[in-house]
């Protein structure tokens, strides 16, 4: 990537300075609020918030790839779906050990990511996008057309995972576990972002040629990011299986890969908060636009409405929701 074009605005994110604690204040506050509010949320609200939190983890995992490293993948749902299926398949009839299932889901998702990454990172640009899509489609068809995962109908999770006193059958417990996973993911990515590894990824995103010229073996950095992103997507997948109690091949479908990409674009690329905001906004939009009580007959055509809203966002807020936040408080986001 040539960096010869002149800077048009100094508001683009620079390398995060060492203001880790300052940057985490707002997210930490949000976690605290959610933790306190959890017992008071009704069934529908609680389910919705859990769904959003899981999608936020999924979105954050893609943000590592797209926003931080500059690798646009259109096949990220594969790792999400693999995580989900592994959780169900390994649970058996008695339900599984939460820790074991987490490790297995994340591990196998990471393994597939290693294979996909090793091969697709040999390509660049449009070819990379196409290859990641192809690998995701392969995984999709494995679950869709073979008996491995119960075919196109999917399979049910009979008993949700548990470990010791932590039983995900309990709605409140599930909420806290997902919240902890989200907080952990966010924290991990925040640390990575300010670390040498994260700085190297940022450099690769901006000018891979320069990174190689000073001595970074960029292929391995990209592969590591790809695998970590895959593992985190697998984490989200494991949790969504626990929440929904059922998995089907659509989890790996390309439009799921497309949706998570839309989420981080909507929220604002290059910011962890953007990924979370995007997941929240996208999910809420979907909910609102398909609620008859709010939009009447349009609710049946929510995909059309959603599409139009996204186009409007991209046209007027090219930096996503984070761009809106930055306009209000320029110091706000880094």
């Amino acid at each position, binding site marked *: 990537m*040539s960096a*010869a*074009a*002149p800077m048009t605005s100094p508001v683009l994110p620079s390398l995060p300075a060492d203001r880790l604690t300052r940057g985490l204040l707002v997210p930490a506050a949000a976690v605290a609020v959610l933790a306190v509010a959890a017992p008071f949320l009704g069934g529908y609200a609680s389910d919705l918030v859990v769904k959003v939190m899981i999608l936020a983890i999924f979105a954050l995992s893609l943000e590592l790839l797209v926003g931080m490293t500059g690798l646009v993948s259109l096949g990220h749902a594969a790792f999400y779906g693999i995580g989900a299926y592994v959780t169900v398949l390994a649970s058996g009839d008695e339900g599984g050990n939460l820790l074991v299932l987490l490790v297995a889901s994340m591990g196998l998702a990471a393994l597939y990511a290693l294979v996909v990454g090793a091969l697709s990172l040999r390509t660049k640009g449009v070819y990379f996008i196409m290859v990641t899509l192809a690998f995701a489609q392969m995984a999709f068809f494995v679950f869709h057309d073979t008996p491995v995962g119960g075919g196109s109908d999917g399979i049910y999770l009979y008993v949700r995972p548990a470990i010791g006193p932590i039983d995900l059958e309990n709605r409140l417990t599930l909420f806290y576990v997902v919240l902890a996973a989200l907080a952990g993911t966010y924290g991990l990515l925040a640390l990575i972002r300010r670390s040498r590894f994260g700085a190297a990824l940022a450099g690769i995103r901006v000018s891979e040629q320069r990174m190689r010229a000073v001595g970074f073996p960029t292929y391995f950095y990209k592969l590591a990011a790809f695998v970590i992103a895959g593992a985190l997507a697998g984490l989200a997948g494991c949790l969504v299986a626990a929440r929904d109690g059922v998995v089907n091949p659509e989890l790996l479908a390309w439009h799921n890969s497309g949706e998570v990409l839309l989420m981080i674009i909507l929220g604002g690329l290059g910011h962890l908060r953007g990924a979370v905001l995007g997941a929240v906004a996208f999910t809420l939009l979907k909910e609102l636009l398909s609620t008859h009580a709010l939009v009447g007959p349009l609710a049946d055509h929510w995909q059309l409405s959603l599409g139009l809203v996204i186009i409007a966002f991209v046209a007027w807020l090219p930096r996503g929701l984070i761009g809106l936040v930055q306009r209000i408080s320029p110091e706000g986001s880094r």
Partner: protein
Amino acid sequence: MIETRELNTYYGDSHILRGVDAQLPGATAVGLLGRNGMGKTTFIRTLMGYVRPASGQVLADGRNVTGWAPERMARLGIGYVPEGRGIFPNLSVRENLVMAARAGVDGRRDWTFERVMATFPRLSERLSHGGQQLSGGEQQMLSIGRALMTNPRLMILDEATEGLAPLVVAEIWRVIAEIRATGIATLIVDRDWRKVLHHTDRAMVMEKGLITLAGGSAELLAQPEALAQRLGV
């Protein structure tokens, strides 16, 4: 007649053309000399509209055509033979030529398919060959022939003899002389400054994005030291 005034072109922040004033009069052969990296190709690309200048003007017959897209510039009657030839590798020789056939801006049809065949006998032997099956010299001739098929008023030849064998080079200069004889104006960039000056009426020398020497070709031929200083080491 094409003119440029104070033309400034950048690639990113790199300031390549630094205020170029040049004239290409009608029915005149003009040479553009200079070491590589000095801006000759950038000048041509700016003229043709492939690159937008940051400031300055390009005028055609007094009309401001600065920033006009290449296809509009071509329709003014400019036949461009680019460095690297740019022929269509997936089309046959015949197709490459026929697709460009057009009457000139003033309605003239001097250059027909038959005339191009007569000028480039080697091409007539390879009409059904695909573009990429041709040798370098044949591709160059095809590129020139294709530009001629548009019956231009001005032909721009950027390094038309580069990388070609001496016999082919001689043939290309012969064709350039023939083009000149039919009254088509030319702008010729070539490393062989002697040949350029012999085949042109006027010439300019470009150094670091500026014209530092210009005049009649015969005059410049009589100043070999001035040329050697700008073109040599």
